[in-house]
């Protein structure tokens, strides 16, 4: 072979050395540029709070721009800035007026009335009136659209005696009607939507007209959504939002979003950050982390169609065999609130704080089971015949971790639990078909106890995963929802909580607290509302955020 100058080797060796040197330099701070300020640097304080552009990172695109149909949290962060509800929630978890000023019943609940603000308008200048509310309610009812379709089944007709009053004529009184519909129904502009033939199929992806503090002006799927301030929003302290623009930038990977936040490419992340990143972000100058509790709760529900789980003693034993505090500390790293009842402590007006949680006590569990007639004939450490399947979404990081703890602790009490983790859609299908003994899951938002109790515990309830058929409980629940007297309602809601806790239908584990991160070096005025849905992204919060 002819001899060669080892030119290639030399080049490669140089490259290698260079790479090694660079990697070794990882420890030094390098040439890190300061994050680009969102405001133009000037020698004086900005005279007014108006101006500035806030960039928020989100982990997914808007899937569906139709506010009547869309059910995803990512969609709602952006749609809520445009489409109003009549009622919203305050920082204490109470329902308060938003576009409505007042709501009440007449004729013993046969009429449900909303009084509206008279100073709101759509961003094309058309006034926001009762006609919009009537129209929205009617199409939702007619076409059974989305979340709110089922809320309007008892409505006979809708009237608007004047421009700012809406009257629902009911076929029968329903206590939670006003506060549920008012909280969930997003109002659409009649003058734009009345020409839409099939509102449930309307993509609404161009020319969106909203009545909120910001409006969507431009977007590129997979990349960003650009919203501009609307010049008329009386609910903001100075008549309109301070920020000129809000950008939502899409980062499918949380790690990338965190890097972008630290560098200053974005000013906030909409999605809650994982517990493991909290420490890192807390140490980053300019970034503030806030905690916000979920409005739902995480639980295990027992299928009472299983002959073992039909017995209250078995269910109580299972709860005694669950180490809830360990789960909260070890898996959730403390980002969890204890919840001994089926109402979240966040809902301060409904939560019964007198209810005591079941203590973690495997021996007591064994005692209860022995009393119920179970025994360990073959000496294998498990009660004979007591074998239960537990289904969960294996894509859910936290739940996947604590179900193993649950199974291990249950074994200490002599109960055999077979864990069945599965892909999310399979899991939902099995839940739907009630093909499980124990269901481990998480409710998103449970805002109105009197209403959702029926969904959870009445025999025809859609999410009655426990197949509960308990006439005494049903009577209490129906009392809570069909009475107009608020004191009676409160009593009944408390009674339901105590009854369910005693019967141990549900093993309520925790209310997750989310950590949300945003920049407070360049901006201030954030208010953090309960739940990851509202968080600091609530229209009333973002309309008050301004440059420092």
């Amino acid at each position, binding site marked *: 072979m002819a001899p060669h100058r080892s030119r*290639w080797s030399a080049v490669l060796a140089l490259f290698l050395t260079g790479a090694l040197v660079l990697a070794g330099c990882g420890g030094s701070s390098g040439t890190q540029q300061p994050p680009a300020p969102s405001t133009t640097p000037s020698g004086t304080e900005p005279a007014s709070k108006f101006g500035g552009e806030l960039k928020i990172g989100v982990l997914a695109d808007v899937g569906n721009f139709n506010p009547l149909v869309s059910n995803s949290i990512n969609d709602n962060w952006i749609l809520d800035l445009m489409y109003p509800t009549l009622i919203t929630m305050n920082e204490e978890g109470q329902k308060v007026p938003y576009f409505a000023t007042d709501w009440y019943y007449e004729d013993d609940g046969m009429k449900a009335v909303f009084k509206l603000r008279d100073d709101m308008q759509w961003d094309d200048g058309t006034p926001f009136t009762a006609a919009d509310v009537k129209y929205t309610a009617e199409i939702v009812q007619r076409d059974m659209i*989305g979340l709110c*379709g*089922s809320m309007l089944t008892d409505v006979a007709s809708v009237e608007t005696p004047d421009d700012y009053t809406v009257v629902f004529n009911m076929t029968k009184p329903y206590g939670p009607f006003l506060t549920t519909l008012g909280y969930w129904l997003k109002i659409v502009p009649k003058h734009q939507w009345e020409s839409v033939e099939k509102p449930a199929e309307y*993509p609404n992806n161009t020319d969106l007209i909203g009545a909120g503090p910001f409006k969507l002006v431009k977007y590129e*799927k997979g990349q960003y959504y650009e919203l501009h301030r609307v010049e008329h929003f009386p609910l903001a302290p100075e008549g309109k939002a301070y920020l000129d623009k809000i950008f939502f930038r*899409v980062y*499918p*990977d949380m790690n990338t979003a965190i890097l972008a936040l630290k560098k200053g490419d974005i000013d906030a992340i909409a999605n809650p950050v994982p517990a493991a990143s909290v420490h890192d972000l807390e140490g980053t100058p300019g970034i503030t982390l806030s905690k916000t509790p979920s409005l739902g709760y995480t639980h295990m529900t027992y299928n009472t169609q299983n002959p073992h789980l039909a017995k209250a003693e078995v269910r109580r034993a299972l709860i005694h065999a669950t180490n809830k505090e360990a789960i909260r500390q070890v898996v959730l790293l403390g980002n969890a609130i204890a919840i001994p009842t089926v109402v979240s402590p966040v809902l301060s007006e409904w939560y019964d704080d007198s209810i005591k949680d079941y203590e973690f006590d495997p021996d007591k569990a064994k005692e209860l089971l022995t009393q119920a007639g179970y025994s360990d004939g073959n000496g294998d450490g498990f009660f004979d015949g007591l074998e239960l399947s537990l289904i969960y979404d294996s894509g859910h990081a936290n739940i996947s971790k604590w179900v193993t703890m649950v199974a291990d602790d249950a074994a200490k009490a002599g109960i055999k639990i077979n864990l069945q983790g599965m892909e999310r859609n399979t899991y939902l299908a099995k839940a739907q078909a009630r093909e499980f003994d124990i269901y481990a899951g998480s409710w998103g938002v449970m805002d109105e106890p009197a209403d959702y109790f029926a969904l959870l515990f009445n025999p025809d309830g859609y999410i009655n995963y426990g197949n509960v058929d308990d006439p005494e409980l049903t009577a209490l629940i129906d009392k809570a929802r069909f009475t107009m007297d608020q004191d009676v309602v409160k009593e009944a809601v408390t009674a339901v909580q105590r009854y369910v806790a005693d019967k141990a239908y549900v093993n309520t584990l925790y209310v997750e607290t989310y950590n949300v991160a945003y920049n407070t070096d360049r901006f201030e005025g954030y208010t953090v509302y309960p739940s990851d849905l509202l968080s600091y992204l609530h229209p009333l919060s973002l309309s008050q955020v301004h440059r420092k």
Partner: protein
Amino acid sequence: MQSYLIRRLLRGLLTMLISVTLTFLILRLMPGDPTLLVADTRMTEELRQSLLKLYGLDKPLIVQYGVYIRELLRGNLGLSFRQLQPVSEILMARLPWTLLLTGSSFVLTILLGIPLGVVAAVRRGRLADRVINAFSIVGCAVFVPWLAITLLYFFGYRWSLFPIGGAQDIGVEGLEKVISVAYHLVLPVVTLVIINLASYVLFLRTSMIDVLHEDFIRTARAKGLAERVVTYKHALRNAFLPTLTMMGLQLGYLVGGAVLTETVFAYPGLGRLIYESVTQLDYPVLQGAFILLAFTVIIANIFTDWAYGILDPRIRYE
């Protein structure tokens, strides 16, 4: 040649039909109900039925299939369940970005991989070969998201040399946009090249080493030809065939194969869209995407066959 091409195309069409049918069936037979994803706690049976009707899932399977094929022949890929928008629009919005990303890395991988493979073969056993081998194996074994995040961390965050994710800066036009796009392309392409380089390098190296031992190479040298001519004109040309096959296979991955990279770099490509559509049970988008993928693979295949014929006259299309 004419009849060969026609036969190939017809075969391609048949393959597409089969793949479309299979996709259609698998999606509808697998567990999971797209309606359940729309309204969780407040779902009612009525709402569920109306959603099933909207998605066309209430009809018998054979009817659904017939409708789908009929619409497909008209060029209508249907409406996305999730977005209520035409699937073709959704795919076309993301396709250019994917092609830009995977196309650039494909070209770069070949431009780098072939010389490196040749060098490794020619300098077999020496330092250059060992180094190239080591790099290739590491590149093969490395976990894509880890590599992507590491590059982002150092080059994007610590040294601020490149942007952190995204395809472009918002709101730029014209030349500025071109530069911005190129700038954002660097790190994702580097990631993909590092990962894909290994296959080419090692494949080519092996074939080259084999070929370099053949008699005709010895003859060429005996004839007094320059080593460079021997290496490139004679050895490489023959050793290239298996690599060409692999290139054809990789071309098939151009459309959907960069999911992890697209995710970490927030690059708005098709790979990520496909992944999301799976979890969201968005059948029409998935069907549309798989048609696109099948189409790409088939075209890549035809191209590979044709290129084979050019490189090796011994291969005839009968």
